[in-house]
């Protein structure tokens, strides 16, 4: 495999691992908790690094950082439940503390010199082709592919196995609890996986861009579909696409690959925001304009039925003369109003029903 292919594959596996759990963060409105976790796992990584004198044992890292991730969730909840601090402020209070301790440890302890600030922020995905996994002396291939592939598999297994439970507890936590699905345990399991995913993704994309991979593909997919299964699949696709696009952009401009991945993910999101067939800004504006026209017709017919003079309408509604004309044309075409005796406007029975109808669309 070429260097490029390995980097892209590493990025894609990172993005897919993140998208699988990140979709639920978006749906549960806890995207910023994901942000908090992704910052504070630095402390877990550095602590493990420090305690083991600089080994890069992935299992220990995942355990250590997973613990700190859960600690973050727990501390946010603890501060919030004190009743003195709201959730947003609690998040904003907790993660900088854990992140700061991590940063200070990085800069203070000689064992941790191998983690530098750049690595913390951008990751080292460019080194992915250089690291190989050796087990009992046997070379098993590229380390990043094993680690991230494993993470993606675990997340996929979790989402598949607990699909029904996740869906229900995301949609209706109260109902999930009464049906005995232990939403709290599921919540912590999900957050634990977010933490673990963050750790393994950390190497590739760094602390803050993990957030982009967690949230942006899920948010993009949420704009494109109303079905959970489709949304998760789309999120994985968008994530992988961002990884590929990010690599292409980064090599063209010789810039940070992970930063470019986040930027491309943001670009895809913008496309979805504008062009999503159901929830896009364009479609929404068009639908709103259509509803608006229908509403205007109803307004106009009601006023004509009440005996108002159509010339009076432009000041009544602050409509421009052209809006009055257009709305009148539409009302004539749809048969709510007709011209009788030359020019006199008369409301037809259909128009009278529209004006008087108590059906107000609710």
């Amino acid at each position, binding site marked *: 495999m070429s260097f490029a292919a390995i980097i892209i594959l590493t990025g894609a596996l990172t993005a897919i691992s993140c998208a699988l759990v990140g979709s639920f963060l978006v749906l549960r409105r806890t995207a910023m908790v994901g942000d908090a976790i992704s910052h504070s796992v630095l402390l877990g990584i550095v602590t493990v690094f420090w305690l083991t004198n600089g080994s890069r044992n992935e299992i220990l890292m995942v355990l250590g950082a997973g613990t700190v991730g859960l600690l973050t969730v727990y501390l946010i909840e603890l501060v919030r439940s004190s009743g003195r601090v709201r959730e947003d402020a609690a998040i904003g209070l907790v993660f900088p503390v854990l992140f700061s301790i991590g940063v200070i440890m990085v800069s203070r302890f000689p064992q941790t010199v191998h983690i530098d600030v750049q690595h913390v922020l951008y990751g080292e995905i460019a080194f992915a082709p250089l690291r190989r996994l050796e087990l009992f002396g046997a070379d098993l291939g590229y380390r990043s592919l094993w680690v991230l592939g494993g993470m993606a598999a675990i997340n996929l297994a979790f989402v598949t196995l607990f699909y029904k439970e996740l869906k229900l507890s995301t949609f209706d936590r109260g109902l999930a609890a009464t049906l005995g699905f232990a939403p709290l345990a599921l919540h912590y399991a999900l957050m634990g996986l977010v933490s673990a995913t963050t750790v393994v993704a950390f190497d590739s994309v760094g602390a803050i861009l993990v957030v982009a991979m967690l949230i942006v593909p899920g948010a993009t997919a949420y704009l494109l579909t109303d079905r959970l299964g489709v949304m998760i699949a789309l999120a994985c696709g968008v994530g992988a696409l961002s990884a590929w696009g990010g690599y292409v952009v980064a090599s063209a401009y010789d810039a940070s690959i992970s930063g470019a991945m986040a930027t491309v993910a943001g670009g895809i999101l913008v496309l979805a925001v504008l062009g999503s067939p159901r929830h896009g800004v364009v479609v929404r504006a068009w639908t709103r304009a259509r*509803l608006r026209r*229908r*509403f205007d017709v109803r307004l106009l017919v*009601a006023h004509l*039925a*009440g005996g*108002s003079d159509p010339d009076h309408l432009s000041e009544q509604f602050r409509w421009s003369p052209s809006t009055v004309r257009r709305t009148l044309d539409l009302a004539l075409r749809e048969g709510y109003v007709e011209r009788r005796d030359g020019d006199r406007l008369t409301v037809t029975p259909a128009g009278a029903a529209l004006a008087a109808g108590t059906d107000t669309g*609710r």
Partner: protein
Amino acid sequence: MIDRPPNPATTDGGAYPISVRDLIVAYRSTPVLWDIHLDIRPGRLTAIVGPNGAGKSTMLKAILGLVPVSSGRIEIFGGPYREMRRQVAYVPQRSSVDWDFPTTAIDVVMMGQYGQLGWFRRPGRRERENAMSCLTQVGMADLASRQISQLSGGQQQRVFLARALAQAADLYIMDEPFAGVDAVTERAIVELLQRLRADGKTVVVVHHDLQTVPDYFEDVALLNVRLIAAGPVAEVFTPDNLAATYGGRIAFIDAEAAAVASARSAR
């Protein structure tokens, strides 16, 4: 216009405290209020009544210029709200604010005078004394320096009423002041309404407890997107009108209220 309700206005000339003509308000092209035509009579206590989603709060917000209207005209004492603002006091729903905000009861009451103070001027001793007398009127003088989160729901509501008093207005607009308050507060609010009426003020209240409408109010407006009926309680608060307002639901939700209403109208 289309099946216009009887005009509730019986008094002559002079500008109505509130005069609503041909009002249509829509949220995303769905009508919330449709063709409302209503005059609020001066010096009377008027209840606005209707089911959930009938547009009661929207009506108040339209009157206060807080929501855009699709068409129609609203006049306050014969002028646009913008110019008549100082004659109007507004009591929002209690649940619309954060009661853990770092402020005291008297401080909230003083906010009632911010409109008169204008930009940059600070409330001083005069405003404080005035606020204190307003708190006294609602029986809250001894809790003046209490943090607002430490007040009961009823006490919070009375702080809001005191703030409206501090506005020294001629027209009082209140959004569900009776919602979730204790008996003591309910009595205090009723007394306050009577006092305002005695002083010649006009009061418009969004109300949802049908049973108490005939006891507390003189006029009533029945609203369900359209104005079903408006006028003196004795004439308008009839089982037929209530059924028209609440649809069939009145039969099982508030049969008792309907019974009360019919007993009153029979009297």
